[in-house]
């Protein structure tokens, strides 16, 4: 009874606490915040202060002097640095939550399906200490499927592949629950690392994480262009490993596709394994409708093509794949009945 009363005064929010980006959805207002999950810490006389969070902090990533540290508190989809993550969540909540309202908000946070109880507890406690009145956890694939508009509560199988920053979640859902989920710790970050490693190995050039991410977004592809073409090309800058001076070189789509072969095949493998574990009735549903791709990784060009060829199933990319998860989480927040269901987990 009281929770409904408080609900009128507090801005309940849904948070997609992603490895790469954190998105916040406020009830009745939609997505109000979309910032990188990066925190910059200033350290002086042994005491740490938060210097910047989000976009500002991301600019500092890899460019910090000794007394500043830019940290990504989430690794592989879960909290790696508890205190920093708590600071980050607090910052985002403060930024979003109307200070005039006295009631603490209810918060729905999504967690990777493969996260352990300890990891879930860490996320829950972070949110609680950041001022949440009540914390609900929703599993990421479920949120992604709801956000993509799949009929998750119907007695029909749906398969969703959410390629996030830290993890790739493959899940088969039916009747409002996850029938089978597979979470591999391969995502956008691993792709960046693969690009860095490839360039260093083949061109003796060291590029930063930010540059690698930019390369992936611009010319990244899950499969090399057909007919032996090189595809698009891009100038990249970094430090030459041989003589230690900054250097610039041109890299092609084909090369990046080669570098991404390993993480992409890991994703394909996860999808195949999940399909193997799918009950025949659900498999029959999936054959007709196919797989839905969500998450930032879905934007990697030709990933749908590669998956389609590997599985023989139709593959669709959800609308706004980057915000599917937070939209789904927000949708769960908007419907009180759903929250009651989540409360039982």
């Amino acid at each position: 009874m009281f929770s409904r009363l408080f609900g009128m005064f507090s801005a309940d929010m849904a948070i997609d606490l992603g490895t790469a980006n954190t998105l916040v959805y406020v009830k009745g207002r939609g997505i109000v915040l979309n910032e990188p999950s990066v925190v910059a810490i200033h350290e002086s006389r042994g005491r740490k202060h938060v210097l910047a969070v989000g976009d500002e902090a991301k600019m500092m990533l890899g460019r910090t002097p000794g007394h500043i540290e830019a940290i990504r508190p989430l690794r592989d989809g879960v909290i790696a640095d508890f205190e920093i993550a708590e600071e980050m969540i607090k910052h985002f909540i403060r930024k979003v939550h109307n200070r005039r309202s006295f009631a603490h908000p209810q918060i729905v946070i999504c967690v990777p399906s493969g996260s352990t109880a300890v990891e879930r507890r860490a996320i829950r406690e972070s949110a609680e200490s950041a001022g949440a009145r009540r914390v609900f956890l929703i599993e990421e694939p479920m949120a992604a499927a709801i956000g993509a508009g799949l009929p998750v509560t119907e007695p029909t199988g749906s398969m969703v592949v959410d390629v996030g920053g830290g993890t790739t979640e493959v899940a088969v859902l039916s009747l409002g629950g996850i029938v089978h989920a597979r979470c591999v710790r391969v995502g956008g970050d691993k792709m960046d690392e693969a690009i860095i490693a490839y360039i260093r190995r083949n061109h003796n050039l060291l590029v930063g994480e930010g540059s690698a991410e930019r390369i992936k977004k611009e010319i990244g592809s899950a499969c090399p262009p057909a007919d032996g073409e090189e595809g698009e090309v891009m100038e990249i800058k970094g430090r030459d490993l041989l003589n230690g001076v900054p250097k610039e070189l041109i890299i092609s789509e084909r090369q990046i596709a080669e570098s991404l072969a390993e993480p992409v095949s890991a994703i394909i493998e996860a999808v195949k394994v999940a399909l193997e574990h799918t009950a025949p009735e659900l498999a029959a549903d999936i054959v007709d409708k196919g797989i839905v791709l969500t998450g930032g990784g879905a934007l990697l060009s030709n990933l749908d093509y590669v998956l389609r060829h590997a599985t023989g199933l139709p593959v669709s990319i959800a609308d706004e794949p980057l915000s599917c998860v937070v939209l789904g989480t927000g949708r769960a927040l908007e419907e009180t009945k759903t929250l009651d269901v989540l409360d039982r987990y």
Partner: protein
Amino acid sequence: MMEQPPRGDIEQDSIDVVGATGQDLREQREALGADLVEIAETLCIRRGFLEALEAGDYDALPGPTYAVGFVRSYANHLGLDGDKLAGQYKIEISGERPTAKLDFFTPVQESRIPRGAMVLVTVLLAFAIYGVWYYMNARDLTFSDLIPEVPPLFGRTAEAPAPPLPADPGATASPQGGPAGDAASAGPAAASGAPPPPEVAMDRQAAVPPPPAASATGAGAVAEIPPPAPAEAAGPPQSAPAEAAAVLAPAPAEAAPAMVSTRIEIRAKADSWVQVRTAEGTLLVTRILSQGTSYAVPPQKGLRLTTGNAGGLEILVDGVPVPPLGPFGAVRHDVALDPERLKAGTALAR
């Protein structure tokens, strides 16, 4: 991918027609001369879905998310702008298909009191309790005040177990002045309709107030029974009930000192079980008389005694022992507690 200049005719105004997206796709495919079966194989989308899409039969397609994906893939495959056509398709189906509802299956509630009713009852109960509390506080009452006054007659009974009986015209006019305590010796003497004292054990008598006035017959000479006191003497020290009783029947008390109470006394030489019934069969007493105690039989006619140890009992009529009922350990039924018959030794039932 097949190269084809982007079509400029997909405009907002052409979107109004349901099926426009499908039509565009079909025209493009026919222009390219592509085979639907081949495309279906390449895209891994069932041919039926592609046909339905081209025909504008959107209801045959799976959920909107999938259908949009199909449109995008198909359009991209044909060299069209997939995102644009997907957007157009979404506008076409908007309003037709509401987004999937989030109706989670929840376990059926077992039959329980609905929460609302529970809350209502609790609130009402709280108000009721508060009301009572407030009423009592406001009037400075306690709970015992809420209980109605005990009716006067009953009150006397309660306070004086053997109430003085109103004088029975036919009887010896012997209301007892005192409360008559246990007064085995008391009340029933008048043989009126008043309830007789249930039972009296002699061992308790020492503690009780003085018994009623002695009668002219000298009854109540039982050793343990304290000497009878005249009603007048008993009156003043007695408490209110006694006075009340006196008020009820003062005259006879003064006129004729009450008659006796009892003539028969059963004394236990050894622990013996006794049971006394009235003539109608009402149980007056059933207990074990322990050694040394005695029981004054109410002066009532037709009482019958049953005992499990006839030899253990000594029966006194007017203080004089009568012949024993039987040997030690003998069971005797229906011994008539009639002074004369006891004296005569004929009290035993045949």
